[in-house]
């Protein structure tokens, strides 16, 4: 097939999947929230409220599109566009299904064979903060400005542990290409999934990624109780919808990355291995990958109603004083194992030991803090 046409088809499939997926993720989020708070949740439009996302989408489209008179109009309109564009661009290098090394056949990703893979995703998503900053600043409103100031500090800080946490995987796989990382895990089976060797990195990556996408417990840029709506206070109708879409797309991308980098991607014992060539094997692999992604998304949603929001100094302390040193230790341990050709299984107890040591350090009361209780 013409590579141009097949790429266009892939882009269409990914775009349609993400847009539809996002609207049903919002439905899922509301159902999970209702279930955790012992409510019923959306149940008026369609069976189990299944048509609710369509009704919400229509509402986004048909509502009056208000642009307040005191805003900087160019930047006000640019901000949600940047948010959506950057998060969509990041999906270009994520394999959404099993890929092959055969370059002539159809690949289940938009841009296969990108050597820098994961670094590209970090680069593009690091631009997403412009959407938040510009949105908050252009709104010309104190709450919005405060929200965007928080967001810029938060996102810039958490990019560092996010990038450092995957260095261990790059060392183990010898590549930053997501397909290669996946392939190495798939060939070794469940025993070679990166989660066994990099559990600490998985935790740091997942938490930092949550902070990057401004999800609870890291939603300080938009927390309702303090800042009305934070950076999107002045946004209405489809412009607000685009911010919403960007947040959910970010969650989807993060879940794909978790499934691919740490949980073996489409690999599952017996039913989906590199050797399984039975009829419909491709579908099974596709389903396995997407089940893992859905599980990760559901976990994100459960977290939302489990953990309270961080205070701002706690948020900064977590990034700079806990995650960055921990991820550095993780990289050093991985380098040790690679350099002296030790068994990779050493990394599992070492990671657990690092977590326990961190916990012990944080529980030891510091004499300075005890002396002045007001200065936390």
């Amino acid at each position: 097939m013409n590579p141009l046409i097949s790429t266009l088809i892939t882009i269409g499939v990914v775009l349609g999947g993400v847009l539809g997926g996002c609207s049903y993720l919002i439905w899922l989020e509301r159902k999970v929230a209702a279930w955790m708070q012992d409510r019923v949740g959306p149940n008026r439009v369609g069976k189990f409220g299944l048509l609710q996302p369509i009704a919400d989408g229509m509402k986004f489209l048909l509502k009056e599109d208000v642009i307040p008179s005191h805003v900087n109009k160019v930047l006000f309109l640019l901000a949600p566009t940047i948010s959506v564009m950057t998060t969509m661009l990041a999906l270009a290098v994520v394999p959404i299904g099993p890929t092959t090394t055969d370059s002539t056949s159809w690949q289940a990703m938009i841009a296969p064979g990108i050597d820098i893979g994961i670094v590209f995703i970090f680069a593009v998503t690091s631009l997403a903060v412009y959407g938040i900053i510009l949105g908050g600043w252009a709104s010309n409103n104190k709450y919005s400005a405060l929200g965007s100031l928080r967001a810029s500090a938060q996102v810039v800080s958490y990019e560092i542990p996010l990038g450092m946490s995957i260095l261990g995987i790059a060392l183990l796989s010898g590549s930053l290409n997501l397909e290669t990382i996946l392939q190495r895990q798939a060939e070794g089976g469940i025993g070679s999934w990166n989660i066994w060797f990099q559990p600490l990195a998985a935790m740091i990556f997942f938490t930092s990624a949550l902070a990057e996408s401004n999800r609870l417990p890291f939603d300080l840029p938009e927390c309702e109780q303090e800042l009305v709506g934070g950076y999107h206070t002045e946004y209405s109708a489809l412009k607000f919808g685009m911010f919403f879409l960007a947040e959910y797309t970010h969650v989807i991308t993060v879940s794909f990355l978790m499934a691919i980098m740490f949980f073996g991607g489409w690999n599952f014992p017996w039913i989906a291995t590199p050797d399984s060539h039975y009829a419909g094997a491709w579908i099974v692999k596709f389903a396995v990958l997407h089940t893992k992604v859905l599980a990760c998304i559901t976990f994100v949603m459960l977290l939302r109603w489990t953990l309270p929001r961080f205070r701002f100094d706690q948020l900064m302390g977590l990034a700079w004083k806990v995650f960055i040193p921990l991820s550095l230790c993780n990289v050093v341990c991985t380098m040790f194992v690679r350099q002296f050709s030790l068994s990779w299984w050493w990394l599992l107890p070492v990671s657990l030991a690092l977590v326990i040591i961190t916990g012990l350090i944080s529980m030891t009361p510091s004499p300075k803090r005890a002396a002045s209780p007001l200065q936390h």
Partner: protein
Amino acid sequence: MFSLDTTLLAQMETPWAIILPVIVIGLSLVWLLPRGGKGLSRLSQILALALIWGSLFSLTGLGHIAVTDVLFGVFSTGAILGGICMITSRNSAYSALWFAIVTLSVCGLFLLRSAPFLSAATVIVYAGAIIVTFLFVLMLAQQEGTAGYDATSSSPLLTTVFGMVLFGSLILGISSWPKISISAASPATSAAGTEVAKAPAAQGHRYFTSAETEQANAWSRHPEGEVGSLHGLGRSLFGDYLFAVEFAGTLLLVACIGAIAMAPRRSQGTL
């Protein structure tokens, strides 16, 4: 493929073909730079930018059009016009945003020169962190609109003259380079693996051949097809330039410690 950077410039006989566009660019810049008062209308701004772009276009002399040429045109136009908008904008926040456009365009140029990692790293560090910090500071400082001293450039004529002299001499210098054919410029190992012509070695510049560096450092041996890839970059950084990289890292660490030492403590009242 990259016909526009050296070959066509080298064909230009008269220096007037360089001097004239440089003067036009300089005049347009003086016209554009903010000097208080009401400022230019949108139309004259666009006209000045178009003049600059046209002059640059005449400097490059675009030959046959390929996809890479179009991309090169887009990215270089973005970089140059973004840079001009950055220094001529009256609003500091817009200046920072134009700076982001410049960085992204330059990263696009890196991509065209098959340096994807450098490009992505520059986006992360510059566009994703440093310019965000600029915006952060600007927004804290200037929520009530820009101050008068920020909205004017201090000596537009002098800066433009000096800048244009530098620019013109740079263009003249580049145009006097010998014509490089791509086959010689791209490092291609011969079957024996002895000689690699990385750059114009004939011009009196001294470049190491791979045989020489291999004697000095076995790590800098580039296997076939690794040039431009992540492995090639890593091998080069931690093989050819190991001391420079380590020295830069140490310098940054010292600067970090110094910044922390100089920053006021919380007990001293600030922060």
